[in-house]
């Protein structure tokens, strides 16, 4: 495979993309930056305030709380979805008529509008009329996600696992499918155990797709809004108010443009930083 040719004409090719994305990204972001350093008193007059909003947000307990909840949420779902996804991908048949059936059924949750996912689980988990809620309570478990923060968290996590694990499964499955049979045959002749096959053949070959899966799940879970909003609205109280939900409350609910804008920028920077760290660690791991 030859390397790329130097060709500044390349810019013409990417121009439509740059324009469309910049149109959406740069101008709105500029307004955000604008608001983040100004104060308004509601009558379209703005006063430059420097970094006041940033300081306020960074020191606000409310922000710390949302951030903490968000980090906990992302950490928990990564810890569940990644091993679970890998395990399911490993257990799936590699050939045969059931493969397409499995893949199609597993992909279904990924294609449901996010508000429907939230609404579905909202009712599914209701303690008196929902299938899950009613069943749990009839087994003697005191479960009510609308009143108990712990149940709300459990339901939120169950919903996300239900919703997104298939993405990890599909990606890992694709990585596994790319392993030629000869590897497994050689392992059989070498007398390797199943664990050795996993550790020395499957896991290394899946490193690339696993990186993508983890990165995507990390980013998307950190940005999550709709499903938890429809499920719990951030409650009970604000026990499930994750970062995005809090931000929208401040921006569109309270119309506190300054703090909202500052929070947006901080939010974006956090995710950029964390993603960059994740990405670098994983790429480094790959190169070793």
């Amino acid at each position: 495979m030859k390397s790329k040719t130097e060709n500044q004409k390349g810019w013409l090719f990417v121009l439509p993309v740059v324009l469309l994305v910049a149109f959406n990204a740069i101008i709105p972001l500029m307004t955000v930056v604008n608001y983040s350093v100004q104060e308004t008193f509601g009558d379209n007059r703005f006063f430059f305030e420097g970094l006041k909003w940033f300081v306020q947000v960074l020191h606000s307990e409310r922000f710390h709380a949302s951030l903490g909840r968000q980090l906990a949420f992302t950490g928990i779902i990564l810890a569940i979805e990644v091993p679970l996804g890998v395990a399911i991908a490993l257990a799936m048949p590699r050939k045969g008529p059931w493969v397409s059936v499995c893949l199609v059924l597993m992909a279904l949750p990924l294609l449901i509008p996010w508000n429907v996912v939230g609404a579905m689980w909202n009712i599914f988990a209701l303690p008196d009329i929902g299938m899950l809620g009613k069943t749990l309570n009839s087994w003697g478990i005191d479960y009510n996600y609308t009143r108990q923060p712990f149940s709300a968290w459990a339901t939120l996590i169950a919903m996300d696992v239900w919703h997104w694990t298939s993405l990890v499964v599909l990606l890992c499955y694709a990585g596994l499918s790319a392993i030629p049979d000869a590897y497994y045959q050689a392992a059989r002749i070498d007398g390797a155990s199943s664990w050795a096959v996993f550790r020395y053949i499957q896991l290394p070959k899946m490193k690339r797709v696993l990186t993508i899966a983890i990165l995507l799940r990390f980013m998307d879970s950190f940005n999550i809004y709709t499903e938890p909003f429809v499920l719990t609205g951030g409650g009970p109280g604000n026990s499930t108010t994750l970062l995005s939900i809090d931000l929208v409350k401040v921006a569109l609910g309270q119309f506190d443009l300054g703090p909202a804008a500052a929070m947006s920028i901080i939010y974006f920077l956090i995710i950029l930083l964390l993603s960059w760290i994740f990405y670098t660690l994983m790429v480094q791991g790959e190169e070793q």
Partner: protein
Amino acid sequence: MKRLQWLVPTLYILFLLLPIYWLISMSFKSTNEILGGFTLWPQHFTLQNYRKIFTDPTWYNGYINSLIYVVMNTVLSVAVALPAAYAFSRYRFLGDKHLFFWLLTNRMAPAAVFALPFFQFYSALGLFDTYIAVALAHCLFNIPLAVWILEGFMSSVPRELDETAFVDGYGFWRFFTRIFIPTTAAGIGVAAFFCFMFSWVELLLAKTLTSVAAKPIAATMTRTASSSGYELGLLAAAGTLTIIPGAIVIYFVRNYIAKGFALGRV
């Protein structure tokens, strides 16, 4: 242990299907029955929810609206991504790596950050409550995704193909449309699938940028829930219907899913 291997995917799929079954069974119940208590399947099977959706314009328009902007966005995103992906895969130009990374950062952007700015921005442009507004807004996430996927597929097409075509006298655009695009058809399919998927499922921006004329079904559902109390049966039917386009698309690309994931990089 090997014998029971099929149990794992089977249990997982049952777990996935459970809430969906619940939704579908609710859609065939009246709201009264749902609120009355938990029943495993409809005691009084009824089609009234579906009838309402198919006859009431506020409902069925929601689906049409959603489909319109999703298709618009998919076509737009893939169309502009194609030449860009080609450039990233074949050419080196000033700032190309940084540009690529910048594109990817947009995919990472929290939608919540853009909700208010988009609302003000598109309103200022007079595009509030139009299909094009949502289609354009979704480009923020979908174009980087499409470029990323397509670039992966295109890089696996050998450069010799291009060179042979040029030697054979093909002009660039003729080569691109007649030869190159058919070769990367699988990649285009995968990219289009993911654009469709992300645009169809997204709610926050779609809801923020519309009110009546271009209101997507997702917004209709959430507005109904808050205004007229919980018409659960109706909501369930509406929800069930939203699953169908996704199921259809998945059915058609089922043979490419595993291959597509493997070849490209989602």
